[in-house]
């Protein structure tokens, strides 16, 4: 299973594919079958007036990024772990940290 993520062209913010479109909240990211994920990624690579640099994140059965991707994706999904923007992304959606 994989998650599809990218950055929005206009402001660079991190986006997650929810199954029906892009959302900013990683908690809503859809777990995609590998083949479907690859096809979606290929589709969105071409639609670069909307998103930049889409890529896939392998996830465990529990839906968390596999160990190798974990820290990076944890930070992307929840915001920096430091300073005045600590977990800004998680706070924005009034949720606990995901991943």
């Amino acid at each position, binding site marked *: 299973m994989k998650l599809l993520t990218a*950055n929005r*062209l*206009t*402001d*660079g*913010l*991190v986006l997650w594919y929810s199954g029906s479109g892009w959302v900013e909240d990683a908690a809503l990211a859809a777990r995609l079958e590998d083949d479907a994920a690859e096809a979606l990624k290929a589709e969105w690579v071409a639609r*670069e*007036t909307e998103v*930049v*640099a889409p890529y896939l994140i392998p996830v465990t059965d529990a839906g968390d990024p*596999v*160990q*190798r*991707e*974990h*820290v*990076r994706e944890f*930070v*992307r999904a929840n*915001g*920096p*772990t*430091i*300073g*005045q*923007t600590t977990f*800004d*992304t998680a706070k924005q959606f009034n949720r606990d940290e995901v991943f």
Partner: protein
Amino acid sequence: MYVYDQFDHALVRERNAEFSDQVARRLSGELSEDQFKPLRLMNGLYLQLHAYMLRIAIPYGVLSSVQMRRFAHIARTYDRDFGHFTTRQNLQFNWIKLADTPKILEELAEVEMHAMQTSGNCIRNTTTDQFAGAAKDELDDPRPWAELIRQWSTIHPEFTFLPRKFKIAITGATKDRAAIRVHDIGLHLTPKGFDVYVGGGMGRTPHLGHLIKSGVPGEKLLSYLEACLRVYNRYGRRDNIYKARIKILVSALGPDEYARQVEEEWAQLDQAAIDAPYYEIDRIRTFFPDPAYADKAFDAAALDRAKAADPGFARWVRNNTHPHKRDDHVSVTISTKPVGLPPGDASSAQMDVMADVADSFAYSELRVAHDQNIILPHVAKADLYDLYQQLDRVNLSTANAKKITDIIACPGLDYCSLANARSIPLSQEISKKFSDANLTDEIGELEIKISGCINACGHHHVGHIGILGVDKQGIEVYQIMLGGRADEKAALGVITGKGLSAEAVPGALERVVRLYLQLRTSPAERFIDVVERLGRETFAEALHEPA
């Protein structure tokens, strides 16, 4: 400080108009990301982990109060209310919108700033001594020469697409506070001209620069630099990004052969067409006069009374002031590193206060130091207590310059898309471990430098204690290096002991420091002195928990 002339204004205006058009074409889809990426990078705009990051050039770290106030405005208006000062003496905003960048660049141009050449394989911001023009040990002011290099290197047609990025540092003092030996070119201004060091650098394969020529006259500096760059541009490795820096070329050829080729190139160059004439160098010097020093009556007894009444102030005077060429002035280090907070970050409110105190007490001038602190280069001793109190109100009075909590840390994996590990959280934990100011004073000078990847933006190779974050199968692991230093006795640290988890590092450093306190012969013997006297291995065992 330097004031833009009509050519500077026209260049920045034209470049901004060009980039504004490029942004519009990217947003409309006329430009692809592959086409746009090199264009945005040439204007300092990166796409990082969370958003676009805009890196703004602060030429040789010199900043006016007006410019600092403009940074505060940009932080408030376009970012999340703060900015991050870097080891290249620049400023980064971490949450910038692509569509806002033309407007931001326009606002920067109004105060004679831009973001050109803060990325890409070109000559980057020349850095220098943060106490330039003020330090007691200075032989000559490096700022006019740094400005000359800025003018020569800005959009230099031959050096815009070098094999790799290129960094120059220059110092004019006996103490090297500009880390010249770990730059592609390091310049040491002496009474006989420039000593030129080439081939230094950090990153994946660190090297110390080699002295390839002494006594290059100032009026020949540009043509000699041009010869250095030409040899590099011709023979630097473009086939392998990891071997593309000049340090690899100099190492492969040998410093003597590289120097010979530079001499050969220099001899055949049309030097007169490249070098700045005397009158131009003199004209640039006029932009860097001493300030109109205020003859304020200095009451040493009053300063002593204030120190006695306020131990925090006494500590700050002791640690955060630097000798000035005038006895009635000092240079002040404003630490951006309060215990437990990210090194180099400043909020818009703090930036405004720094601009205000620069106007009130420092002739409206500030500097960004490569250790990520802010400097007020000229402050009358009579004003110190008033200055301290104003800084203290916004958490800018931490008295830790050059102490163990004055940590350099790159943004690391919290912001940077290249990083393998986080560096700032570790710096926060280390500073909490050493939060007792009496202990940090007892320890004395000790420089910790942390990078979150091998690119070494946190200068870990030249930390007395250097820390490199690496990724081991998804786990952040930190390698500890001991014995590095970036000063006039520059040395590269060596990995000592096994890598440690983030949780283990603060305790390991505490054991190392306790051992140092036992081993030193006197408080004057610094940590780095003991490492050099007894060897790094003396501390290897202390890095690990006793079994």
